[in-house]
């Protein structure tokens, strides 16, 4: 899922955590920063509700499985479908493509029972990474985040501290956290506090 985070297309307007700065905490031992957090503002999001019957159309437009295997992300290039439940998934796509993509999917599915809803502005995506990322997340998340139990490509809807989040493992020490934008400032504050013992860097 590397490409989606390095894309340089930016959405117009203001991201959920725009303006947040000056939060960095030096690693206490002067070593490597334990947790680095980045707001991934440039990413389109479409919530999809439907059954297997819409799989073909979704595949045509994304190259991804719908629904993906339980608790997994199905990826094809810059597009990813995150499993959220038996009839629900979150489609991630290139920034700015979400309106068009939603319209095309909807047109192809006309007459079928489904829902494709643009939630690009409703959700905030945070990339959290670093040598202590699992230790930080474990302070607020009851999932077993051991690399052998929650590896790259796996996802889960759960709770981080007091905020509902979708966690996606993208790499050994890298995760995406997706939360509602109204919870994003809280989640960022929480991550900073939880990372005090490891060092913390936030890039807006």
């Amino acid at each position, binding site marked *: 899922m590397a490409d989606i985070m390095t894309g340089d297309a930016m959405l117009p*307007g203001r991201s959920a955590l725009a303006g947040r700065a000056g939060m960095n905490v030096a690693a206490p031992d002067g070593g490597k920063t334990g947790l680095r957090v980045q707001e991934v503002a440039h990413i389109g999001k479409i919530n999809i509700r439907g059954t297997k019957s819409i799989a073909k159309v979704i595949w045509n437009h994304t190259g991804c499985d719908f629904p993906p295997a339980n608790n997994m992300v199905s990826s094809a290039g810059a597009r990813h479908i995150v499993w959220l439940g038996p009839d629900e998934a979150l489609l991630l796509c290139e920034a700015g493509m979400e309106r068009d993509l939603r319209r095309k999917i909807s047109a192809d599915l006309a007459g079928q029972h489904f829902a494709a809803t*643009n939630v690009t*502005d*409703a959700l905030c995506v945070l990339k959290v990474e670093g040598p202590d990322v699992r230790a930080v997340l*474990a*302070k607020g998340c009851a999932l077993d985040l051991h690399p052998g139990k929650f590896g790259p490509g796996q996802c889960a809807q759960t709770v981080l*501290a007091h905020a509902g989040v979708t966690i996606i493992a993208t790499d050994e020490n890298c995760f995406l956290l997706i939360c509602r934008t109204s919870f994003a400032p809280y989640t960022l504050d929480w991550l900073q506090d939880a990372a005090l013992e490891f060092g913390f860097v936030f890039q807006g």
Partner: protein
Amino acid sequence: MGLMKAKPAAQQMRRRSSGGRIDRTKPVTFTFDGRSYQGYEGDTLASALLANNVHLLGRSFKYHRPRGIVGSGSEEPNALIRLGRGAYAEPNLRATQIELYEGLYAESQNRTPSLKFDIGAVNSLLERFFPAGFYYKTFMWPASMWMTYEHVIRRAAGLGRVADDHNDPDRYEKAHVHCDVLVAGGGAAGLMAALHAGRSGARVILADEQNEFGGWLLAENDTRIEGVDANSWIAGMVADLAAMPEVTLLPRTTVFGYMDHNYLTLVERVTDHLAERPAHLPRQRLWKVRAGQTVLAQGAHERPLVFSGNDLPGVMLAGAVRHFINRFGVLPGNRAIVVTNNDDAYRTAISLNEAGANVVVADLRIGASGPLITAAKDAGIAVMAGHAVTLADGNHRVARVEISAVNEGATQITGDTVHMDCDLIAMSGGLSPAVHLHSQARGKLAWDDRTLCFKPSATHEASFNAGACNGSFDLGAALREGARAGVKAATAAGFKAFTSIETPALDTPKQSWRPLAAWKITNGEEPGRGPKAFVDFQNDVTASDVALAAREGFQSVEHLKRYTTMGMATDQGKTSNINALAILADALGSEIPEVGTTTFRMPYTPANIGAIAARDIGHLFDPTRLTRMDEWHRANGATFEHVGQWMRAWYYPQEGETMAEAVNREVLAARTTAGLLDASTLGKIDIRGPDAAEFLNRIYTNSWLRLGIGKCRYGLMLKDDGMIMDDGVTTRLAEDHFHMTTTTGGAAGVLDWMEEWLQTEWPDLKVYLTSVTEEWSVATLSGPNAAKILEAAGIDIDLGASSFPFMSMQEAHLGGLPVRIFRISFTGELSYEINVKARHGLALWTLLMKAGTDFGITPYGTEAMHVLRAEKGFIIVGQETDGSVTPPDLNMNWIVSDVKADFIGKRALARASMSYDDRKQLVGLMTTDSQRVIPEGAHAVIDPDQPMPMEMLGQVTSSYYSPNVGASIAMAMLKGGHSMLGSKVYFPMLDGDVIEAEIVEPMFFDAKGERING
């Protein structure tokens, strides 16, 4: 210049010249009760105090008797001290578990004014008046005095004092952890279990409450394992474990709770032992562990013997004495009496003798024999078989004993009594397995007649017991059991564990683990007479208290516990439980297994609330949700209020304005020029599917099938009991597509509610719901100039009332931003709810503020919003309603369809009780004094002169000063209110004042609704 530290008094006179696990090259200075002492790195506060010959550490709970150190670990019932100063002070810590560090500051507890002279000790002279259940008996009556009594009791009977500053300045952490095998206790059995489980590759956590692993082995200098001394063997085991990547070693970590489905709570003392505590590290860390399997290996607690004077400082458990000698190099006394009902105390006698003390053993067993007894005698120790300590005496420290020949069971003195001087008694009443965690996890216990203790019999959770906590006191057996438990646990967790178990070669004294049953040693007088013999030191419960409680009818062990307080508080009966049960059984003429045991509850030892809360404090206690316009509100001086988790702008005071002035200004502006409200927090739900309209028809009380596309409708949602749960406006975007809004606080609940009905009751309806609350930012523009401002901002649609009528929605561009505009109104004015993609929320707000400058645009907050809607008599769910209000109660029958066959709440509304005349009904109120605002929540009465308790009609739900009406207005829910229009009601205030008001229709402004089109 010339400032010199007072030279500490003779230091560490009880410290041995060699031996123990302390570092004599690293002296540590500490303060106890204002006096400076020295110990060594590796000491506990208890061992350092004993090294300085300090035995008196506190006063007891009830009688304020002098008390000293009894044990050497978490079983310590007496030596509770207050550690630290100011905000950092913490009471009730066991001196035996506090690691010594430079500058440690400790105080004794429960004494006034000083430890050696304690006024409360007069309780001891009045002991006959402090029987079991004393407090219950004395302070029962009159009930009205309880408040006074309680104050005195709490002060007299409490343990330590909490910190003076109520804000704990320390930082704490907590984290979730998962493992395949959690091993609780790192002694012989625990180390073996962890090693064998770890070898399988399983994720293993080994936790031990001490600063180093090894448990009792750390003090057994008479034991060699695999050809090396015990301490070297431990070091080897720990090194092997540390080398395993999936093994986590947690010293200084107490497993204090064991809950359902193998959920365990551990508290790690991360920096408590450090003089300099790194700022980035927490003081303590709570580990919330989900374990696949557990191995419980917490060892055993030694029991005291119950004899008169057994609570004097200087009377210690025999194993603890051995611990202090061998682990800490401290000799707690020079003239020692060892009194025992078993073999194990002989190892202490031998250690005492080797350390240079004079030792006499009083063995309750008439025919005591065996290799350890022989070894003791060979070492020149005097052994008095068939003898017991029948009385210990002394002032602040044991000084003399009476040793008498006793019968088997020590219930009678059968021969001569000798008197001896001494400064130490090492007592041993046998061992009790530490079954606390097993018991917390609802494991079953069985009494073992041979070793005289309760042992685990069956586990309830996925758990194995090993070693002394399983009743296997013999070292060889403990090592074998530990290894076996480790293999079993790893296997049960799905790992391939080595099945061949190597038991290390052992060289350790042979001993019997069968103590003599002697539960209460006679003092030669009638039962209940003579000096007190204590069963529970911490709660000051004596043998006579237990017997008295039994005579008074408290015969169930659970009643006994509550009546006498035995086994309560921080101690949880670690040393006292079995002795108390045995004495109760004796008093009842019953047997211990029949009496049973009380339930051990968590925590095993007290856990800090700070660690349990960790970062759930301050601004992280509960999430604060912010809108995307928040920055503007903040920059423009808004004050905020919490609405659920949302932080909403409350009002925007200008320089020098009071809240009332600011709100009045905002309320007037919305009706004379224009007001702008951040309404982004309203819940928004996208509803799609061919059955969407039918679904709304069932969820709401009114009809939805024929709502035109682009049209909006207000809806009221009921629970199935007919009570209002939420309201809002829903708009039809397409034949099969609706946009619902909910109240700010109700958003999540409404989505869940609708999902529940779709998933459980109407799975045949084809409807999908998606929350879009945060997708849209919403600015509500309201007032006569609203349309002009939109024009000024640049709008590309016709705002005329015919092309854009009330209760409809249009998509448009506003200043270039794509928007959805809903022509709906919560103020009664011409009003537009402008929705924009949230990334443009701030841009929309600033655009409107700029465009509105010439039109008197005024931002208004939630307070003005409340006043504006109250002027129109609009309800707020959760303010006018409280879960017991129906639509008819609000005179809202107009919104309840009588055509629909069913909707949620329909049948319930037809219940007879829903049409009673005395239901509380919504009314408006106008105060006689038009400037007087009734406090919200005030209760109405018909006659304010009636005697109390007055008959109350109901309460004020909303009340404001309305600048547009020029008077105070209020809404209230009053019994039979709808038939009381024109009547006067009264609101008696706490200060005796009475506010008079007339009941009116809840509609205070523009009753004809003429302003809705501007």
